């Protein structure tokens, strides 16, 4: 039994990593109505920015703040320079632009910082909390805490601020939003900036756990997609719950289902995405969309 509970804890730990990136995906979806395939790579790049600050001697927490600021500005800049010109183009064009961005950012990080692993400072103590034969790493607890805080902040932003209302209007119907006086362009840029910032938090959190190199987030992306799908693509609470469920399901399937085993556990997010979309397309916490022809 202790073994099983320990597996669940490991699953929650990896789930928190998925949740952190899923939050950024949800955020940009809420703001702009698109799925950003480059989100993970942007998070990785932000982690490198934070690393670069610490490497020149800036204390960790200050480096983190600077990296968040740079990421916010960078996100807005990307929206202005790269996304804006294709704004009116078909949806798929925007998707392909984010794919191009994915390839570009990944290669650029390798070009600037090489593909070797970087020594990323861990903001949390290295040990583990031992309790009743179970152990939880302090790093994992730290990730939980930060993910919880970010989730709370996003919830407040979505539900209780005018910006949150505005961005919902923009992503639902840009033309009508413009008519009622919402600055659509500004809102979209803000969405990219905020998503990049949340992504930066994710990158900095997971860098000490996954080890920082340009492909750090590549493997996380599909799990984060599964988390966001399970939670409902527009709910921050859903993203976190989804992330944790995906993490636990994947770990348990890998450990206890011999037909799956560690090699095929990447089938778990596939099964989850497919299952959710067929049974409850809006996800656990999402709002059902009523179609209108």
């Amino acid at each position: 039994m202790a073994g099983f509970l320990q597996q669940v804890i490991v699953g929650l730990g990896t789930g928190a990593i998925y949740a952190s990136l899923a939050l950024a995906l949800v955020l940009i979806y809420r703001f702009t109505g698109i799925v950003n395939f480059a989100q993970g790579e942007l998070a990785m790049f932000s982690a490198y920015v934070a690393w670069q600050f610490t490497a020149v001697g800036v204390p960790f927490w200050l480096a983190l703040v600077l990296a968040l600021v740079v990421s916010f500005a960078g996100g807005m800049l990307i929206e202005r320079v790269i996304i804006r010109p294709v704004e009116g183009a078909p949806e798929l064009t925007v998707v392909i632009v984010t794919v191009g961005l994915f390839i570009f950012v990944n290669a650029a990080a390798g070009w600037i910082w090489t593909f070797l692993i970087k020594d990323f400072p861990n903001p949390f103590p290295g040990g583990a909390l031992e309790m009743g034969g179970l152990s939880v790493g302090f790093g994992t607890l730290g990730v939980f805490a930060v993910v919880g805080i970010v989730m709370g902040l996003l919830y407040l932003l979505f539900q209780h601020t005018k910006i949150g209302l505005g961005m919902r209007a923009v992503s639902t119907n840009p033309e009508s939003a413009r008519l009622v006086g919402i600055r659509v362009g500004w809102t979209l840029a803000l969405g990219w900036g905020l998503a990049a910032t949340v992504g930066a938090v994710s990158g900095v959190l997971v860098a000490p756990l996954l080890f920082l190199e340009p492909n750090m987030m590549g493997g996380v992306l599909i799990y984060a997609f599964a988390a966001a799908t399970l939670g409902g693509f527009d709910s921050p609470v859903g993203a976190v719950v989804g992330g944790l469920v995906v993490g636990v399901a994947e770990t348990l399937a890998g450990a206890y289902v011999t037909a799956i085993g560690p090699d095929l556990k990447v089938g778990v997010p596939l099964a989850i995405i497919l299952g959710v979309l067929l049974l409850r397309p809006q996800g656990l916490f999402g709002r059902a969309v009523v179609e209108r022809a």
Partner: protein
Amino acid sequence: MRLSAIGRTAVTATLLIAAAACGGRDSGEAGGTQATGATGGQCAGQQTTGITDTSLKLGGIYPLSGPASAYGAIPKGIKAYFDYVNAEKGGIGGRKVEFVVRDDGYQPPKAVEEARRLVEQEQVFALFQTLGTPSTTATWDYTNQQKVPQVFVATGASVWGTDTEHPWTIGWQPNYVSEARVYAQFLKKEHPDAKVAVLYQNDDFGKDLLGGFKNAISGTKITIAAEQSYEVSDPTVDPQMRNLAESKADVFLNVTTPKFGSQALAADAKNASWNPLHIVNNVAASITVLKPVGFENVQGVVSATYYKDPVDPTWAEDAEMKLYKAKMQQYAPDADPQVPYHAFGWAAASSFHKAMEAAKCPTREGLRDSVRNLQGVQVDMLLPGVKLETGQGDGFPIESLQLMRFKGERWELFGDVIDTRKEFGPLTG
């Protein structure tokens, strides 16, 4: 009126074909040139494409893009070596070496394309290194049909040495089976009834090493208590490490590539209730893998190696190491000489230098025969006692390794250089 879809394609494609035809016609058929009688009786009729009295053209294929890009550092060390030899030694036997590097993104079809570009368009003398088992397997039928040497491929699969149908292709680094044998022998001596937990990458590399290890421990009291695989696309190996910890094995064999090596080392260090003897395979034994984990967390970890680690202070006063660091600074100022991939490239390039000098004929056939008949060739970047050795029925240039243990901030070599040929007999398919 607007042009039809087909019309547009026709215009574009015709232009393209015309452009390609103009660009390509003069390079002629890919047969290459042959040695004339003047070169000497025994070399007459052999292939001399890509080699003249003053030049030698080589091609290498590496992943410079995509998920395996870390290995893209290797050609930097090779280029620095050849630049140094060209500028200060007059080249290899008076021939200035030109080394053309192409990117395959670790994708086999791309590797085929690039191999053909190098052989047919660039007219290289030989392929000096293709990286990775998939890319090498995809190209070796082609290189052997064309009779182009494909030497010192950068992969440790045992098939390069055991295969008999591809004489033009040969490996260089110790194959994964030899390395596994070294660990097995170490355990037989130190932990004769060890229970071993294994984490391995689910590909040719992981399976070759694990398979070799299982063979080497058969008939002993050493047993495998648990084994877990991971995919290169997995974000983390933490769940696998959790499963292995439950086996309570007393030895942990870490068969991973760099990032996953760091993750496994960190997971082992974090787990206070499981403290096995940690053996990490050579691919992940670089200081650049251990340092991010924290040196205090990797004390006592065991591995094996065959070339000098630029970070290891043991070699601080070593002549070859000093030369390497100085020449890297001079010819590859952007590349950090501490990175072991650069030293790997340097060692492979200087091995090529020796093999080319030993060739009886300056021809493709000459190179093929030379790399298959290396007799105790000493390469200064390799550990003292590790020599290049090939011959009839032995297609593995390096089969010796030495064990090392991590202490303080560096690896410490211990025991003698282990020649796995002598200990276990030759490796056959």
